[in-house]
């Protein structure tokens, strides 16, 4: 029985140690790479939390969580959007525990998310930080995944040519 206790809160999220740099790169918070970037050269993600959410959902597709060995703080949870971001994380926790009680403990909810993110991170980093342009690769990657998830009757039409056009290069 759950008594009328306050909801256990968590105020930061963690990732596996060593992943931070890649997270920062994908969110565009490091390096000169993203200076004055425009259009297709933009960093793929707006914020660290967005990278985290994508990693988490990729981990979901893989189907198994990976516990963290050495954790490192990534960001504060306050940045998450209530109605979309947190709702999805809660859905994950509900589905994982097959119950709603888990929602009383934010620690648990986030732990589940972090472990899925850990699983999905490797694939995300591989697909986005490859030789091409991250935003272009991310988009093509997502559309591919969508095809697998919800194959449309017009799959042919939805195949965009993701050749990294030289013509899209902008002057620095």
């Amino acid at each position: 029985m759950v008594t009328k206790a306050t909801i256990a809160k968590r105020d930061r999220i963690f990732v596996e140690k060593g992943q931070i740099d890649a997270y920062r790169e994908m969110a565009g918070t490091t390096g000169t790479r993203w200076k004055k970037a425009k259009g297709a050269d933009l960093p793929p993600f707006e914020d660290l939390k967005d990278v985290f959410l994508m990693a988490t959902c990729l981990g979901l597709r893989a189907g198994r969580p990976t516990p963290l060995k050495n954790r490192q703080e990534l960001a504060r949870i306050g940045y998450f959007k209530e109605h979309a971001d947190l709702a999805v994380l809660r859905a994950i926790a509900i589905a994982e525990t097959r119950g709603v009680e888990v929602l009383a403990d934010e620690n648990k909810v986030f732990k589940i998310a972090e472990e899925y993110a850990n699983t999905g991170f490797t694939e995300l980093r591989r697909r986005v930080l490859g030789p091409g342009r991250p935003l272009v690769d991310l988009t093509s990657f997502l559309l591919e995944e969508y095809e697998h998830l919800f194959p449309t009757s017009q799959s042919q039409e939805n195949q965009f040519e993701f050749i990294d056009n030289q013509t899209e290069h902008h002057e620095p």
Partner: protein
Amino acid sequence: MKLDSLTLTNFRQFYGDQTVKFARDSTRNVTIICGVNGAGKTTLLTALSWCLYGQDINASGELINKRALSETPVGFSVEMKVQAMFFHETERYSATRVLRADKISEKEWSHRELPFSVTRIRTDGQFQTVHNPMGIIESILPSSVSPYFFFDGEKIDQFTRPSHEEEVKYAVKQVLKIELLERARAHLAAVSKEYRQELAKHASGEFTTLLDKQGRLQDQLEKQRNSLETYQKEKTTAERQLSDIDERLAQVSAARELSQKRAQMEATLKAKENERDRLWESIKEWDNRGFIPLARPTIEKAVAILDEKRERGEIPPGIREQFVQDLLSRKRCICGRPIGEGSNEQIELTRLLGETIPSELENIVIQTAGDLRSLNATCVAIPEEIRSAMRRKVGVDDEIEEIQQKLDDISRSLEGSELEKVSDLERKRRECSGEIVRLAGDVGRTETLMEQLRIQLQEVESGISKAEVHAKQAKKLQRRFTLSSKAADAVDAICDVFAADMRQQIRKEAKSIFDTLIWKDSQFQDISISDDYHLEVLDRWGLPARRELSAGERQVLSLAFISGMSKVTGEEAPLVMDTPFGRLSSQHRENIATYIPEITKQLVLLITDEELHSTARANLEPRIDAEYELVFDQSTGCSSIRSVR
């Protein structure tokens, strides 16, 4: 003139000594020199002209073979030479022009042209240096006429373009040796002057006056004649300048238009690129929400669990937690029934309390359930948003590529065009036009004046012949004076008539050649050469049809005119043609190949392989007596002449 041989030494791309011996037989009079573009056909022609006439030719760039130049050590010199051997009226000549270059350093040269030399080779084998080499060449084949015998097939249609009348006139005069007539006239006038001066010694009174007057009139007439020639030449030059300026203006305004177009396109391009950037920003926004559809299966699972719980009444709880606790602490139900300690009601209520979830959690759960339901719709929307944004981006990509290609085309068109200031060109044009008007006035004025003078002169001359002369000696002088004056006047008149007659003959010859060479059922019926040497082709209504001539037909017209000229003069000059068939249809080529050897005493054709094949070649075959190939060596960048027949 009949060419015997041409030897080049280090001329342009020809390294070392290269020789061509020309076909000279009366029936087998055709020499073929074959070479791909760039192998040196035009260079051969240039060499011939340079040898005979020197600086006059349009020679750009270094004339001396580059390989020979580089092989020369510093401090030494290298010689470039062209030697032309030819026959003229049973005499054999050798013309040699030499350019020597001294290598001062690796990059510095000093050029020295040695004196032009022409040697006459007598039948007994003796060599005789000609004292006035340039004069002899001018008399055999004047430089002004040479372009009509040694000609560049590419340039030939310039001949039939407007504002080339003076050139036509000059060419005709030279080729027909009208100059001889003019010299005769001048000579006679000089003789007449001498007699007049003699006569003046015996004259007196009125007679003297008349003689003086005649002398003065003659002098004035001569002066006017010279002025007229000068004005006419200047007018032609100005007209040509005007036509040049107009051409440049057209280029500039075309260039300016293209420039403007380019600027517009660049602005559009920038806008499109911005559009593309914005589309990517939009795509990025959607991508960042893109995790949601990935979680769809999980979301559906969670929603199912929540639905199940709701169905089972667990959420939202049928009874709120707070409400149950109030009941328990009040120990009374809302209906009023008491809830006793340890009663069934109390047990039931306590049990219920255990099954409710904390109110805080309750809120979260309700909220989550609601959020997840609306996220379901998002799951479908997001992929579609991304796809449609990508489709729009691809559309913009195509537009950008199209614009860039057009920009490339414009760049290429503008390349190499000198964009002079339009204002300068306009100013020059105005000046030029003004000058042409002024000169036209001068010409008209001078012609009128000359006419007046001639009339006055005739009056005076008739007065002189009638004048009373007493001494026998004086009478004899008077007769001779009259004779020479009249003869001078007669020759003066003859000049014009002769020119007109020659024009007619040339026209007839040219027409017959043109008929033979041009397509049989063409619309062109006649050729005319007007008084001011305007070359026209007339259609069957007698109207000028020059505009409708294709480039090839213009070439044929020029060819016909030149051939007509050479036939009328009976002049023995060889026709040396550089890529003459380039722009002609195969029918024209066949015709020309058949008839051209008959038009001239000696024919040299500088052609590419494709210009002359199958029927055209077969037609020419019986007349070919010498054939050469120009071989270009890629590795040395030099050409050589190889005999094939």
